[in-house]
């Protein structure tokens, strides 16, 4: 039994800016480009936009991210819905969900949901952008972290990955199979930053960041923006581009409790978020055709596959070929645009943007033929927050 809202709302416009080392522009500029592209894609006019939801990415934490003033910058004078949202990497799903409920109940007609970020500076490293360099030092017990040598998100995820790997006997070569698979998809994605093919040998030769993570286990850092426009199914039907209908929505937020009573590393919020979204959509794991999963690290993909019930705990790697670089190897239909590892890192908008492309059938050489059910995930913190969207080319 699905929920009556299944298929009643849709993503009708998608705007993806140039991605990666694109310098000389701030996050507002990228946001402006993304909404311009999305409005054009939907065949709308600027004045049709009456809802704006924003997620500023890492520049939001550095004080230069987009927020409510974006309305003024974009000259949006008809807003009936406006918010700056943040549940880290789960925000993009949450924005689309909030927008879907709003348009379904007449609070707005066309809601632009924008993720925009510009952390990369010419001459600076991705590590400098995300490692906390230049931020004020912590006090109290948190100040023990740099005293012990803990820095950055890479370390937190590497800790989670190690526990998972030792528990289930997952190896670095297994993580490499995820990395190489996604690069094969990125080769055919014109939006992707990293398009040269990879081998498992390349993976093993890439430098260690925080063992068990090589460089090629870690996502990119990108400047750019993605805008999705959400409207009702009825309105979406007659617009310029094919709609990606929203079938299921869910969230699950286990949080972060450093205590024996809470397991970290071998669980995520996908279990609860997925259950909620499957129920709304009236589908189950066996119905999923394509997965677009938040892949800040290779490990995150394996964890997510299992928490959505697509493989038993510890067995997600079984969905991947032994050598994904082999042209004969059949690739799992997971992260079909290359994901955050190889295409672009727009937090939760990376999986949603590729999900819309696949649901529309506009994936070109990387398009998956059977695309009825597209499962998209968002994940934030260190597996602390999670959002799910189930998209479909079919209204019902």
């Amino acid at each position, binding site marked *: 039994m699905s929920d009556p809202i299944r298929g009643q709302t849709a993503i009708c416009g998608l705007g993806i800016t140039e991605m990666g080392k694109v310098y000389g522009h701030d996050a507002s500029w990228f946001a402006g480009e993304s909404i311009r592209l999305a409005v054009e894609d939907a065949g709308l006019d600027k004045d049709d936009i009456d809802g704006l939801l924003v997620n500023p990415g890492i520049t939001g934490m550095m004080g230069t991210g987009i927020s409510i003033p974006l309305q003024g910058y974009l000259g949006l004078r008809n807003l009936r819905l406006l918010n700056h949202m943040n549940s880290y990497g789960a925000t993009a799903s949450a924005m689309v969900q909030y927008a879907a409920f709003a348009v379904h109940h007449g609070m707005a007609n066309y809601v632009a949901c924008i993720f925009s970020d510009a952390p990369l500076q010419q001459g600076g490293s991705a590590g400098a952008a995300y490692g906390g360099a230049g931020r004020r030092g912590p006090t109290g017990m948190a100040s023990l972290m740099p005293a012990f040598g803990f820095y950055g998100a890479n370390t937190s995820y590497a800790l989670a990955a190690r526990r998972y790997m030792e528990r289930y006997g997952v190896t670095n070569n297994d993580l490499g199979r995820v990395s190489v698979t996604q690069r094969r998809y990125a080769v055919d994605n014109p939006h992707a930053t990293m398009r040269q093919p990879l081998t498992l040998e390349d993976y093993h030769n890439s430098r260690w960041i925080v063992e068990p993570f090589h460089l090629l286990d870690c996502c990119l850092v990108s400047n750019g923006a993605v805008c999705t426009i959400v409207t009702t199914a009825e309105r979406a039907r007659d617009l310029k581009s094919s709609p990606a209908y929203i079938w299921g929505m869910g969230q699950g937020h286990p949080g972060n409790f450093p205590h*024996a009573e809470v397991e970290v590393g071998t669980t995520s919020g996908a279990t609860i978020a997925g259950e909620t979204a499957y129920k709304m959509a009236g589908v189950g794991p066996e119905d999923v055709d394509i997965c677009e999963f938040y892949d800040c690290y290779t490990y995150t993909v394996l964890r997510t596959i299992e928490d959505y019930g697509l493989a038993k705990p510890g067995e997600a790697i079984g969905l991947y070929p032994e050598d994904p670089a082999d042209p004969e190897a059949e690739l799992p239909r997971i992260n079909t645009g290359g994901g955050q590892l190889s295409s672009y890192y727009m937090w939760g908008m990376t999986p949603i943007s590729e999900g819309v492309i696949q649901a529309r059938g506009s994936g070109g050489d990387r398009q998956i033929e059977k695309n009825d059910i597209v499962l998209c995930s968002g994940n934030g913190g260190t597996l602390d927050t999670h959002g799910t969207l189930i998209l479909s080319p079919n209204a019902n």
Partner: protein
Amino acid sequence: MAYDKPLPNPDENTQPFFDGLKDHKLLLQYFPSADHYQYPYSDRCYKDWSTDWEWRESAGNGEVYTWVRMHQLYHPSWKAEIPYTLAVVQLDEGPRMHTNLVNVPVEDVHVGMRVKVHFDDVTDEVTLPKFEPA
């Protein structure tokens, strides 16, 4: 050579914890109403929202919950150490602590390894709670 790595920066609430380390005692917050040990510091028990608590000394025993080898240099003072081993230790009282493992070759480190606290007097004023094989 003088110790040049980042040093902890106690605040009013956590000063007793850092003073305890100097006396080679690992102090944890204990909230009696929920019979709950909590770390890191909070002014409220997350189990029952009680604000009544006291410092209690931990026995300092636990096991490795997870661990990594840090290869990336984020602060110049770690250059000679890289790669170094970082761990999360699950204390027998319940809380998990981020820490360093010492006195153990990396080949022997694994999830579930029993460890005990090792107080490392890194300067005359500062002691860090590291862990070693039990």
